[in-house]
């Protein structure tokens, strides 16, 4: 983790009709850190990810990646720079086997450029590389799981497949949109070390989560969104202690009780 800023968002604003989904949100991410973004439902977390990765155009604001303006770039150009994302609703290629799902990102210009191979060479063809990546992310190599059609895989594997798709691009940043949601406790328990390993490999992560306990374990910093506005930002402990966060998240009723439950 360094102090070098890798991604800088300034005054991100987005409206859907009359609804202000994002209101002048500004933050920056340092290289190699894990930034958690939390907030109640409808607070604009996914919209923020969509804006950064270019799937939605912002009304105003500016996004800099390594000092380069990516505000108005189309999604594939942004992904080509190494800013990748997972989808909250998993989007594998359902008709293809799991490892074939990775042939597609491996075919992209970025993978060809960064992978140091062109569909052959010493790393093997794309199928082999795909299986390697899947093994890295927790698909058992010698089992039949990597070869199963994606539509038959359980949620836990699909979430991993989403991450694997990002890894195939050799990303600089991964924006994880709720990778823990819908997973069982044991699945999450096996996912956390994976996230930690990605950080050790030097990948910057922005994680949107509702599973606060697991998030607070891995995240270096937390940003809280509420009704499209940035509420606060700080270390997990600071954020936990912030009274405004508790009110926003759990309502203004008896906070202590809910907090212990979470």
């Amino acid at each position: 983790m360094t102090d070098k800023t890798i991604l800088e968002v300034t005054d991100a604003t987005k409206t859907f009709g009359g609804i202000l989904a994002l209101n002048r949100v500004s933050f920056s991410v340092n290289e190699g850190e894990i930034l958690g973004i939390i907030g109640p439902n409808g607070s604009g977390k996914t919209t923020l990810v969509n804006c950064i990765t270019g799937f939605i155009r912002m009304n105003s604001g500016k996004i800099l990646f390594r000092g380069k303006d990516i505000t108005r770039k189309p999604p594939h150009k942004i992904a080509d720079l190494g800013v990748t994302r997972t989808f909250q609703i998993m989007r594998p290629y359902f008709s293809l086997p799991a490892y074939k799902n990775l042939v597609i990102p491996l075919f992209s210009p970025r993978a060809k450029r960064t992978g140091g191979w062109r569909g052959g060479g010493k790393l093997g063809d794309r199928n082999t590389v795909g299986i390697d990546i899947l093994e890295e992310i927790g698909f058992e190599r010698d089992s039949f799981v990597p070869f199963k059609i994606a539509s038959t895989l359980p949620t836990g594997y699909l979430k991993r497949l989403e991450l694997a798709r990002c890894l195939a691009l050799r990303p600089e940043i991964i924006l994880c949109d709720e990778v823990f949601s819908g997973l069982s406790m044991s699945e999450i328990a096996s996912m956390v070390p994976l996230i930690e390993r990605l950080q050790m490999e030097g990948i910057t992560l922005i994680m949107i989560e509702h599973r606060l306990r697991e998030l607070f374990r891995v995240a270096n910093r937390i940003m809280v969104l509420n009704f499209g506005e940035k509420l606060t930002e700080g270390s997990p402990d600071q954020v936990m202690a912030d009274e405004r966060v508790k009110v926003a998240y759990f309502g203004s009723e008896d906070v202590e009780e809910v907090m212990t439950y979470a």
Partner: protein
Amino acid sequence: MEQKAASLRKERIDRGIKVRTDGIYALMSLRELAYLSVPRLLLIVGMLLLPFIMPGMYWQRVISIVCIYGLLALSFDFLAHYVGLVSLGGAFYIGVGGYIAAILNKWVGFSPLFSIPAAGILGGIFCTVLLLPCLPLRGVYFAIVSLMYPLVIARIIEALNILGGTDGIMGIGSFPNQWSEQYTMILLVLVFLFAMRRLVNLDIGLVFRAVKDNDQAVRASGMSITHYKAMAVFAASLIGCLGGACLVHIYMWSGISLFALDFSILPIAATVIGGGGTLVGPVLGCLILVPISELLREFGTLRIVFYSLILMAFIVFRSEGIMVYGQRKYHQFERWAKV
């Protein structure tokens, strides 16, 4: 249908031989090799023998027409089932390819040997450029625009009286003889059929299929979907334009009837009958539908009724299509299993 107890359901299981012939093990024995090669050889040899089987000049001409529709159906099936673009542009490809071949042959002086490939490539580029604006969009737009262009171009030629106007361009060079005509067509169909089957299983073919499955994930993988859709449309329109170019040289005439809607609709019907997504199915569909349509010519306008009935019967009773049904029976067996 046989009534069975509620606790039983039909189960489909791959035949052992299908599994054995999946990889290198197909080389194990002649039986395995035959399992793989006989269906393909049947098609290739059958197609190559067609000109000998057909009685008379008239039916031999029908072979060429079948092949042109076959090319169109192939391009429709590729776009619809592997890229997710429903194209109603058969007439567009035929017309563009036909007129370009006519111009090249009549006014530039290319012989059919050169004008047909040139018309394919130039026509492919022309169609792709014109269709480019609707490629970033999802949904029905591509179908509408590809249906609109042939109508528009036909009206432009008519109104401005260019390219021969309503009379068309006459006196275009023909194939040297009937045999070369038929075998050019048959080989075109076979070559493109196997080439497309190969293409969709290559890595780039997987990208095409991914664009159909899930275009957002393709964009998130750092690839422009417009770029890949344009490549697919080029491939499909190239095939269609080659068909159009051949048609012009067969009829020795190019006119606005090349933009007739038949060329858009019949390939779709053939795909329904033959089985979408198999690539070979639509070609078989054309082999069935086009001769039927010729046989029914005696009934005059009534033939549309018979034609519709056949289509309807297929949609109701065998909506999966001949090839999908056939492949299933060939590769799998069924048995009743306890739930």
